[in-house]
């Protein structure tokens, strides 16, 4: 399987060149176009993996879909084009060991060898940071494709790193993530408009996005006419 990120960076889509037997698992609704020699199978479990219904339900809590789409090439020289819902960039992350914790809507596609599960992030982070209670956990080895709202940028964290809520795309399992205040005082943090932020500790790779969907919602919401 070969991939190619096209139309970067504002409206990125991923184009796969598949050989017979190659398979890729995608988010429901991500497919833009495909060759006629590809079959689509929709299930709630990872290809060849277990879990099924329970994993599907857990995934729904993360903001992802209950189902997963598995695209398999039946012939050689097949093309599959997929894209995210929000306008922005996509990135390829080779998962070689351990797991990757991905923010609900940022998981786009992965090799069929990667298991897509949900992981609990706790009430505190959900209530105070506006992040989801559950995050997507990608476990196994293979290729991972993540999407962002706006630009995506990787950071190699070694020590401590702070990201505003809503700007996290994904982070490696070796990083610890806690909710904390942006400044020294809690009141100052809120008056400064930053409120609570996400603090990462440890060593590992972190992907951030330049924009965040909740801010767009807050900006547009009051301007929309009630139906």
């Amino acid at each position, binding site marked *: 399987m070969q991939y190619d990120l096209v139309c970067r960076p504002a409206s990125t889509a991923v184009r796969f060149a598949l050989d017979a037997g190659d398979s890729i698992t995608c988010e429901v609704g991500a497919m833009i176009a495909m060759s006629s020699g590809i079959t689509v199978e929709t299930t709630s479990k990872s290809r060849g993996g277990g879990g099924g219904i329970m994993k599907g339900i857990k995934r729904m809590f993360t903001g992802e879909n209950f189902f997963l789409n598995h695209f398999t090439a039946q012939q050689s020289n097949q093309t599959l084009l997929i894209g995210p819902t929000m306008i922005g960039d996509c990135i390829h992350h*080779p998962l*070689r*060991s*351990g*797991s990757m*914790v991905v923010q609900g809507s940022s998981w786009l596609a992965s090799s069929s060898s990667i298991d897509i599960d949900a*992981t609990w992030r706790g009430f*505190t982070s959900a209530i*105070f940071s506006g992040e989801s209670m559950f995050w997507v956990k990608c476990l196994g*080895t293979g290729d991972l494709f993540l999407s962002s709202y706006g630009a995506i940028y990787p950071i*190699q964290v070694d020590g401590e790193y702070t990201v505003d809520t809503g700007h996290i795309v994904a*982070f*490696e*399992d*070796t*990083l*610890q*993530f*806690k*909710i*904390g205040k942006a400044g020294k005082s*809690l009141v100052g943090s809120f008056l400064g408009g930053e409120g609570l932020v996400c603090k990462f*500790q*440890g*060593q*590992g*790779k972190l992907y951030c996005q330049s924009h965040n969907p909740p801010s767009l919602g807050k900006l547009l919401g009051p301007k929309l006419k009630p139906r």
Partner: protein
Amino acid sequence: MLDPNQQFRGGVFHHSIPDGRIGAEIRITPSEIIAEPSAEALSAMDPSEVARLPRWVIPLSECQVDLGGASGRMVFCRNKERDLTIFCEERGFAAMLGDRSGGRISEQLHLVRERQAGENHRFRFWLAVGAAGTLLFGVIGYYSVLAAARFAIAAVPISMDEKIGSMAMQTIEKEKKLSADHPATKFTTEIVDRLKPHAAIPEMNFKVIVIDSSEVNAFALPGGQMVVYTGLLKKAESGEQIAGVLAHEMSHATLRHGLQRVSQSLGIVAAIQFLIGDAGGLLALGSQAAQTSILTSYSRQSETEADLEGARMLHEAGLDPESISEFFDKLKKEDGDIPGVLVWVSSHPLHEQRIESIAKFKSTLGKKEYSSLDLDLETVKKSLE
């Protein structure tokens, strides 16, 4: 029981590794932690890179441990120079480390756990304090706005009530309005005229219209315009009961509850505009809110105020203040279980308390001989058939 030959799956951070990180198989000997690239990691790598990869070793005697990772349970072992990290999340890894180091590493891990728990407790404590503070601030703010609105409404001229009331009146269905010379309209107007001199604002322009509808309802708009439905007239047993309803509704107008509702529903912006006297803005805001549903759904406090003010008016006019509670008690007993019919009663909560408070208030008014209205309700009812 710990298996001395047990292998754990984990990983290594070191500058010699392409990308800095690799999946590894880890063993703990009595003196060292040894990590070797896992088969999966090797299969994904270029063979020339594989040949260059060393075996990573941290002597147990100089190993520094820490806890972290996405789960918070991942164990990180670092060498003295802190340039090599071997990490693992598997069960039994921490116990094996403790066992092989003669308890030294277990002690380190215990201290790390205690420190992290302390940090979490402190953070949760301050979050709870912050949440409580925000709530308190919100409650104080809410009541300040209410108080400011009440204070400001007193400064707004009555003509403003009338304008808002007229705007709302335009939205009410006029087709089913009974004519001015209809017996029902004359009857209700007569009652309003008798109560008017005893209103808190006698110069208010009280008007009443009757609408042909089976709904048992009546309401007042800001400025003194009132609407009575024929369903309510048909239900009443006496003119005094209707006088009770009208006195209650007139009190909503004189106590300016409609304007209070507007100011509350429009929030702090309106309250400030009231205060600075921006009448133009107020009128525009009022027109947005000129829907009877907003203007006539009052708070429990407003209802109680209107009850007592209505009772005072009835008393002054020589009518029994308890005729008001008498009427809605009758409605509740007869048809209380039919939903939707008794709009007037259902919008007025806590029945028994109100009856009680009216009776209590009456006892403070002093003794008086109450008369009857001397109006013919039966003729009115016949004209509605």
